[in-house]
């Protein structure tokens, strides 16, 4: 069908412009390191299997380009039966070769894949069993794979396009099977997608048939007030991740809708360095956990927009342990008692001291991380408990270096991941010096538990193992959770029929703009 006829038949049409807050590093989901690209990838690509919220707080797998799948008991081989009659945007046909090409592309060193490589884990090879059957094989158990493949990194690419553009230039010329086709990208400015009129193979959960929109534009506006202003002036129909005060103002104005899409991963919070005094003392760390009132933070500083966090994972993440969330509650008195117990006594001006040394915390944030103001709240809470604090805001690269070197007592963190295996990245003892273990937390037992969980195919068992890990981490108070990250979308009322993804983002398959 050509575009005129489909425009006539489908309701809606028109252009939807959404303001996004960062610049995509590439449009190749296999190469990207940014979650934002994964949002875009859902418009351009289909994964083999979709994993979507069920609308009741849970989630479910839906057939994507694979009609069915089986997992080997040790979770090291995944077999997919592929859908027929699917064509790529460039007109070529989808089949098993495309799946193999896509996965091989991710592991190709020339691709310099970032999150894809991490998400793929111990990949060995993709076996083409027949034209429409593939098997993805791992060298080791990899239970997180089904979740990971659904998270966006592994949308299937056209082998012809991959060959045509080569592993790097493909990033500017993505060709998938998704509801929208790539039209143009102005670096740093905007990405324009057009509707794919042939699209009929989408999951029913996201709507049927081709997309309703004619055009989907992602406009990069890094400045928070810029996005809000543009939304108000009508230049944007959706503004992503506005600051809480604007979200709240937008809501109060009654002119805009609010969509909060909870995301999988860790809440936003502060890794507590377990090796640098005074936070090397568990009592001091526990005191911190008791001293900070996340509920008040959310109410006073975040305008009640987000949910307070009390755990190392967000609630919708598999392996989230409800019990672990109860480990600490706001209790300043208890914090004081713990500090007394640790030998820190109240001194001049309410600052505690021990052996003539002040109870002082080094706090390092990275600029633009959205933690500046909340941290000032945290600091005022800590001051009430007798801490003094010194806060430095550093550019991202610099802050990371500081975190790795352990110059901080409290840092800043917040991580999206499709599977609780992400814990491996930031609590594993091998990630201290040059990874993202900014708590400098080294616990071989936890390392082992995570490895074991990832080798377990059965969901329930696996989640149980992760719950143990979560509980242990909370007990060791190596992370001060603040609030649960969520994709926050402020929409003009004209925008309808959006679907949520599990990474805190949106799917535009059936979206309309009135």
């Amino acid at each position, binding site marked *: 069908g050509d575009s005129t006829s489909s425009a006539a038949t489908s309701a809606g049409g028109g252009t939807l412009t959404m303001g996004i807050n960062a610049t995509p590093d590439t449009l190749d989901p296999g190469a990207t390191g940014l979650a934002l690209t994964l949002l875009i990838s859902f418009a351009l690509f289909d994964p083999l299997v979709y994993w979507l919220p069920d609308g009741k707080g849970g989630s479910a797998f839906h057939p994507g380009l694979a009609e069915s799948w089986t997992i080997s008991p040790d979770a090291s081989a995944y077999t997919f039966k592929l859908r027929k009659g699917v064509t790529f945007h460039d007109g070529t046909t989808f089949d098993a070769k495309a799946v193999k090409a896509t996965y091989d592309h991710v592991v190709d060193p020339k691709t310099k894949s970032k999150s894809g490589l991490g998400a793929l884990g111990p990949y060995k090879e993709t076996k083409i069993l027949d034209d429409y059957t593939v098997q993805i094989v791992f060298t080791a158990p990899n239970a997180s794979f089904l979740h990971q493949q659904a998270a966006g990194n592994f949308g299937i690419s056209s082998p012809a396009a991959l060959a045509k553009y080569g592993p790097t230039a493909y990033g500017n010329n993505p060709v998938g099977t998704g509801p929208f086709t790539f039209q143009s990208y102005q670096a740093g400015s905007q990405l324009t997608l057009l509707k794919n009129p042939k699209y009929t193979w989408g999951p029913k959960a996201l709507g049927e048939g081709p997309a309703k929109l004619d055009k989907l534009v992602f406009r990069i506006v890094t400045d928070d007030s810029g996005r809000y202003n543009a939304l108000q002036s009508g230049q944007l129909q959706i503004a992503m991740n506005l600051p809480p005060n604007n979200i709240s103002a937008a809501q109060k104005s009654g002119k805009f809708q609010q969509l909060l899409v909870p995301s999988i991963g860790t809440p936003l919070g502060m890794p507590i360095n377990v090796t640098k005094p005074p936070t090397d003392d568990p009592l001091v760390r526990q005191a911190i956990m008791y001293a900070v009132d996340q509920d008040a933070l959310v109410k006073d500083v975040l305008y009640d927009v987000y949910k307070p966090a009390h755990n190392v994972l967000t609630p919708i993440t598999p392996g989230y342990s409800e019990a672990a969330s109860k480990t600490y509650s706001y209790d300043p008195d208890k914090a004081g008692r713990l500090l007394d117990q640790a030998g820190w006594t109240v001194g001049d001006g309410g600052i505690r001291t021990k052996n003539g040394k002040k109870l002082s915390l080094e706090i390092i944030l990275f600029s633009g991380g959205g933690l500046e103001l909340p941290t000032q709240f945290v600091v005022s809470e800590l001051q009430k408990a007798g801490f003094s604090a010194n806060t430095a805001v550093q550019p991202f690269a610099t802050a990371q270096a500081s975190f790795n070197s352990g110059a901080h007592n409290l840092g800043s963190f917040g991580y999206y991941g499709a599977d609780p295996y992400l814990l491996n990245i930031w609590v594993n003892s091998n990630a201290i*010096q040059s990874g993202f273990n900014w708590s400098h937390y080294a616990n071989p037992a936890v390392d082992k538990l995570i490895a074991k969980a990832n080798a377990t195919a059965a969901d329930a068992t696996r989640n149980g193992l992760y719950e143990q890990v979560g509980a242990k981490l909370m007990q060791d108070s190596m992370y001060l959770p603040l609030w649960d990250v969520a994709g926050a979308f402020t929409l003009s009322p004209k925008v309808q029929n959006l679907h949520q993804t599990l990474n805190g983002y949106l799917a535009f398959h059936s979206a309309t703009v009135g």
Partner: protein
Amino acid sequence: MLLFVVRRLGAAIPVVIGITLIAFVLVHLVPGDPAKVILYGANASPEQIATLRQQLGLDDPLWRQYADFAVNLVHGNLGTSFLTQTPVSHELLSRAPSTLVLTAASMLVAVLVGVPLGLVAGMRPGSVLDTVARWISFAGVAVPYFFLALLLVLLFSVKLHLLSAIDDGTAKSLVLPAVSLGWGYAAILTRLVRGRVIDEMRSDYVKSARARGSGELRVLLRQVLRNSSVPAVTTIGLQFGNILTGAAITEVIFGRAGLGSFLATSITSKNIPVVQGAVVVIGIAYVVINLGVDLIVGAIDPRTRQEAAA
């Protein structure tokens, strides 16, 4: 003339080399590991980080890295962005026009506001008009452009819906950024032009033009205007570095994809090839703009042309 241009460009080579060298040393002073910046959020294991470091050439000795950069530069190759893996030249080229348009537009604002204001003020120093112009110029210098930008957006796009809050490629969306960025320079130009006009109005040639029966307007337009615009033009050249800084912030506020903001984010994320490339482009732009300024000044004031003529 052509020779002059060629020679001036030739003389700029050491400056550009110096700029890249300094920029190179400086970016390497920034602590942090670009590989980790890139892989943050990528569920990357330490091995993956190490591999990426090596792929990016970050394990080479510094001199080697600079030599590679310099050799590439000679071949017109600015390298690949760490973050996007696309050629730096491509990234810069796609952003440079936006910055160019913004700076040009804000300079236009500066000239259109500053020069006439300076002229009327300088014509009658001490008059009411002069006092008004001087206050405007004082205020213009004093209002930080980022503050002005915020106020303008609030008023003109959010409240009145007259102008766009963010760039949409139209000339209309250029108005607010250009005004907020150009305003301060308008103020500077007002002061410069005013001072110059006062001097010129006292000059002998104005006296003799009057003695020939020229009216004030004629004196202003035919005699004083050209002479008085010289400092305006040279200032624009000299202010280029500042304008770029201002542009960076203005670009962020107005959601413009430009060099300034790009440079800023690239520095903080230690995207070395981009910083280097941007610095080369900026250095060349600086040289070219100042060459242009010299040529314009030469066109305005023939006395400076002697040396330009070949």
